[in-house]
């Protein structure tokens, strides 16, 4: 085999790309895994992971220079001193905001699997059926029973901890033992259950932090420094989990600094033949050939890559025949909720830093509830005691202030909603033909906003939170509703949606591009709707399913 020929090429090494590489190599295929950014080696390159807070010159906060260099990242918490190298250089890789879109990216091996929030929830049939029932977007071509075995498969390998709850809207999975709620969360959860007569639930977050060891990985040590990279490999990332498995097969070639500029397409055979890349360091162009191509470049970049490909056949790019490529861009909308003070429990405290919180699964527009909007939201949050950064109005300065701040303060509890965003054809990513990046490539332009349904939902996201926090006994309850802007959920989805009909969708039910069935898109772009739960677990499940289907189809000589 020539050294530029592989059975499969995977574009992107984040959560879904890592899974594609693992599944395909384990089925015996030779795989080239392409990553546009630098390599980050597990443990060795987590340069800040074992630093104490005082070892950061600015104690983790952002400098004016960082603000100048990262104007988009600066809009929210990601701009910080401790893992700055994990975020995309905005000067090198600009994008056009037709409307404000807070796009927070990670261009390196592992992608955002290194910095992700790790919350991992299954979808239910309420979610897979919603589009079809309500006539919104297109119907999902998949139902829960088809994807459930793949959820099992990825949960077992990735390691997800959580509690079995028997909730129809949030199916249980193959969980490791759950992390513990603290004493206050436990009591508040019981009060919530009582108050709403078992209609609302507060459960411990289901998280891809392992609570039992896995091969090559140590269980969570409760350091709460996940996003610096975990030296224990205690949370799922490409580096800790899928990459070592793929490497162990001896079938994987990883090539960092490889910006894939187009999928090569044979118009007679109607198949992709490989990809062309630009070496990000040398600016040299290379071609690699393969039988199948997996796109896992992230929602906006996979659409961008398809738009850049096969334009002699389709002016708007490979996979554009339906007119939906790049459209229906979605995210979760968030930053609305409530918080308050919990009375009592002055004789209670916690040990350890739990990188996880509580979860209140969706209850709106389910089980007979009907609102003036469709779909729903879930809450994430938690309870804890205030620390030294609290205000003590009655103390000025001196020893008394020092002593008071050296002790924990009152218990507080807060929740914030994650809301479903509907697919709107007009929310889209396109190629900006007027602007280029430092490699001479046209950059993506993003044009997406939240609309009426989301705005109505946000009223409940705040209002229900205030109502619930008050009902379970919190004092000084205050609501909030900030930044109704897409992107900041960091859950971009939908630009290559799957469907039943090539006229209205980009992918079929197996994540294959209708116009080129040996091209599979399995990052967030395949999502036909967003549901309200964190999406990465679903990307994993659909990727594993698509990879196994691809191997079957190759064997049958169908692709």
């Amino acid at each position, binding site marked *: 085999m020539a050294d530029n020929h592989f059975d499969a090429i995977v574009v992107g090494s984040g959560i879904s790309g890592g899974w594609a590489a693992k599944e395909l190599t384990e089925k015996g295929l030779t795989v080239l895994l392409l990553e546009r950014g630098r390599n980050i080696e597990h443990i060795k390159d987590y340069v800040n992971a074992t630093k104490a807070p005082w070892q950061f010159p600015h*104690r983790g906060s952002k400098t004016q220079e960082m603000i100048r260099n990262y104007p988009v990242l600066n809009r929210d918490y990601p701009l910080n001193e401790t893992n700055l190298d994990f975020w995309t250089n905005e000067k090198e890789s600009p994008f056009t905001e037709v409307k404000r879109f807070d796009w927070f990216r990670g261009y390196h091996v592992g992608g955002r699997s290194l910095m992700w929030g790790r919350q991992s929830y299954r979808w239910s049939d309420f979610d897979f059926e919603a589009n079809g029932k309500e006539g919104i977007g297109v119907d999902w071509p998949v139902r829960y029973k088809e994807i459930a075995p793949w959820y099992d498969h990825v949960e077992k390998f990735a390691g997800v901890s959580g509690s079995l709850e028997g909730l129809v809207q949030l199916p249980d999975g193959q969980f490791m033992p759950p992390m513990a709620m603290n004493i206050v969360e436990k009591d508040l959860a019981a009060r919530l259950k009582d108050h709403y007569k078992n209609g609302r639930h507060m459960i411990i977050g289901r998280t891809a932090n392992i609570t039992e060891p896995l091969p090559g990985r140590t269980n969570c040590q409760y350091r709460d420094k996940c996003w610096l990279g975990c030296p224990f490999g205690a949370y799922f990332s490409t580096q800790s989990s899928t990459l070592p498995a793929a490497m162990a097969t001896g079938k994987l070639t990883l090539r960092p600094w490889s910006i894939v500029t187009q999928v090569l397409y044979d118009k007679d055979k109607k198949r992709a033949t490989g990809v062309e890349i630009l070496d990000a360091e040398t600016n040299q162009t290379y071609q690699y050939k393969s039988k199948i191509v997996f796109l896992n470049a992230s929602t906006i970049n996979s659409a961008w890559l398809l738009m850049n490909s096969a334009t002699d056949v389709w002016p708007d790019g490979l996979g554009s025949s339906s007119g939906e490529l790049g459209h229906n861009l979605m995210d979760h909308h968030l930053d609305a909720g409530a918080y308050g003070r919990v009375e009592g429990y002055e004789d209670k405290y916690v*040990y350890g830093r739990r990188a996880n919180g509580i979860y209140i699964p969706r209850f709106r527009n389910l089980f007979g509830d009907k609102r003036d909007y469709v779909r729903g939201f879930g809450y994430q949050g938690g309870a804890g005691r205030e620390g030294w950064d609290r205000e003590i109005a009655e103390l000025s300065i001196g020893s008394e202030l020092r002593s008071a701040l050296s002790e924990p303060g009152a218990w507080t509890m807060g929740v914030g909603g994650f809301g479903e965003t509907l697919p709107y054809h007009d929310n889209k990513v396109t190629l900006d033909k007027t602007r280029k990046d430092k490699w001479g490539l046209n950059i993506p332009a993003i044009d997406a906003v939240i609309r009426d349904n989301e705005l109505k939902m946000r009223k409940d996201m705040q209002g229900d939170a205030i109502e619930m926090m008050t009902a379970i006994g919190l004092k000084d309850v205050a609501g909030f509703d900030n930044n109704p802007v897409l992107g900041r959920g960091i859950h971009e989805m939908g630009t290559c949606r799957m469907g039943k009909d090539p006229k209205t969708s980009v992918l079929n039910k197996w994540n294959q591009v209708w116009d080129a069935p040996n091209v599979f898109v399995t990052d967030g772009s395949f999502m036909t709707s967003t549901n309200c739960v964190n999406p990465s677990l679903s990307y994993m499940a659909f990727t594993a399913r698509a990879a196994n289907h691809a191997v079957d189809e190759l064997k049958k000589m169908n692709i």
Partner: protein
Amino acid sequence: MQRREALQMVAVLMGGTVIGADAFLSGCKTPPRKEGLFYDTDVALMDEIGETILPAGPGVPGAKEAGIGNFMKVIVTDCYTPEDQDVFTKGLQALRDKKFMDLSPDQRHDWLVQLDKEARDPKYNDKNQHHFKMLKQLTIWGYFTSEAGATKALRYIETPGHYDGDVPYKKGDKAWAT
């Protein structure tokens, strides 16, 4: 007798400020040198301001031991906007001009209590900052995130190893640093 104590005595004897005290303090050598936003004597000044806000106690370090002067210099220089830098350095100038360093701990305390009251006036907010609010915030932040503050005033364990959401607490037990 230390030079500063000598100066204080002179000041008390003369019932006020000593003209030419800067020269006396620096031993008639060179005047303070300014580099960037700060004079080379400012780290010591900010150390003492910080120590007045969060002083050492029995078995507990104060802000000075936490290197608060240097911390303030780094944060104000690198992280503050030009507008905030202006408010901060002007405020510091006033403390420098009125010889904060020459005062006794009690006098320093009383002065900063006064500034703390002033800074709480509702006319001050994010857009109209009072320099003392900055000094106080920087001191608290820098102190409790320093090695001295996090490990001696608070408790810090790099690798807790497990989580327990229900442990007893009694008044006086230190809070976790993070």
